[in-house]
């Protein structure tokens, strides 16, 4: 059974349709990469899955229950989903450790010592051992984003959403964040990534989905999408990406 099932989801902003009937299924331990130009609806789709946006039609199911049911408790849904944002969104008034342990302590009822031990273990594993007591603005962008990833996985979510997590980073810092994501894949984390890193998507994804104008035009294994895309719009997009890289 699929872990996440998105059924004919529509979303409008001020009369503009940002998502036009998206269908997508994600199996446990699967890594799905959403690619497409800015404004194609990748971020909106992720925000809808996390209920940060309410959808205008369709349904989203997590573990077999509909989370877009208006009677469902959004906090209960979000307890099972982690999310990482493009701009990190760390809490600037808290140390790295407090950023990571806030949700485990306040939402999941984990004892402070346990939450701290787990946070330190994760920091250690992702090369941030010495940074527990630092405030976010003392860290580099790459370090901040790695902390944000740790914060999102510290509650052991069923599903992790990553919204263009490397777009705000300079190229030398991108690899350290991608390394963390690669490691999460090895632990079996189910993930949906909106990304502009085509090489990385090709490398890590089980399924690549191409979105344009709020429509999921084509999806399939990365070899197929990147080497032999069927849809002319996908071909055009990948062509543009390729040209941009050559410059």
């Amino acid at each position, binding site marked *: 059974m699929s872990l996440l099932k998105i059924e004919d989801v529509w979303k409008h902003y001020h009369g503009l349709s940002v998502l036009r009937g998206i269908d997508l299924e994600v199996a446990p331990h699967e890594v799905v990469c959403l690619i497409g130009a800015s404004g194609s609806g990748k971020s909106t789709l992720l925000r809808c899955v996390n209920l940060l946006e309410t959808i205008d039609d369709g349904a989203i199911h997590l573990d077999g229950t509909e989370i877009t049911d208006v009677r469902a408790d959004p906090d209960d849904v979000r307890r099972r989903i982690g999310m990482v944002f493009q701009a990190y*969104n760390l809490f*600037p*008034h808290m140390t790295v450790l407090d950023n990571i342990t806030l949700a485990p302590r306040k939402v999941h009822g984990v004892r402070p010592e346990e939450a701290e031990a787990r946070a330190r273990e994760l920091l250690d594993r992702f090369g941030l051992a010495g940074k527990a007591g630092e405030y976010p603005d003392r860290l580099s962008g790459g370090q901040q984003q790695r902390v944000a990833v740790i914060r999102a996985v510290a509650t052991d979510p069923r599903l992790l959403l990553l919204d263009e997590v490397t777009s705000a980073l300079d190229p030398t810092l991108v690899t350290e964040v991608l390394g963390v994501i690669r490691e999460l894949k090895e632990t079996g984390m189910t993930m949906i990534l909106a990304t502009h890193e085509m090489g990385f998507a090709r490398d890590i994804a089980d399924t690549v989905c191409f979105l344009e104008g709020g429509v999921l035009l084509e999806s399939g294994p990365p070899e197929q999408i990147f080497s032999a895309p069927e849809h002319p719009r996908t071909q055009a997009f990948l062509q543009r990406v390729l040209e941009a890289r050559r410059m």
Partner: protein
Amino acid sequence: MTDGQSAAGASEDTKPPAWVKSERQLRREAELRGRARRSVSVATASTIVVVVALVVGITSSPGWPRVRETFLSPEAFVAALPDVLRGFVLNIEMFLIAEVFILVVGLLVAVVRGLRSPVFFPLRALAVLYTDVFRGIPTILLIYLVGFGIPALQLQGTPSDPVTLGIIALVLSYGAYVAEVFRAGIESVHPSQRAAARSLALSHGQTMRHVVLPQAVRRVIPPLLNDFVSLQKDTALVSVLGPLEALRQAQIHVASSFNYTPYLVAALLFIALTVPMARFTDHLAARAARRRTGGGTA
């Protein structure tokens, strides 16, 4: 995947060149020092000219001898100082007590205005009504209304002491202002912070308490202190209810001696209290500005 991996390696074989100040930089710095000296001299000269013009202008006015006698009498100053100072202690007490309640009322009203649940609609409406009404009434009018209105109700347990009534009026008036300051602070926290907190499954209340308010309160400290400078002065308005605070004591002395110097005594005391507070506010604001521009992006 350890930090600083990319930075290492470069420092081993290729040493960066050491800096020796160039001839050009030395000339540049000498020119800047010269300019700084000139600025100081110009500022000093212009200050002296302005001060002399003011002193000459005022002291040569036809009414000056009379003003000096009625407002600047050393004897009257010394005679009034102990009483006015004793009254001023009451002003400070009223200020300190009112301040605590104002912070509580202001924060409470601001938080209530941000509640989403329909259950809280009446509370939310009340909070809006409160800020609208009490920001609209001049503080002195409110002091009259509370000071003479509440005792007139003759209810059991209502305070009749003018100091208490004065404090209540000040809290009602300033609470409305401070609520708006807090609300502005709450709204200044970027929505992405809320999104991050909610995505971690924190409830609205938890998000407010752990993420939004700590950041909001830090941001509004300078404007809050500004309101408190204003509150320190407005404690003098309570004099209309009769308690023997600084202004009242000064009035008593003026009434018996027909010399206005006691008012000057009171004014100087208020200045002595508000100036340090104002400087402290400036200092905090400057520090916040430095953090925003110098420090990180957060």
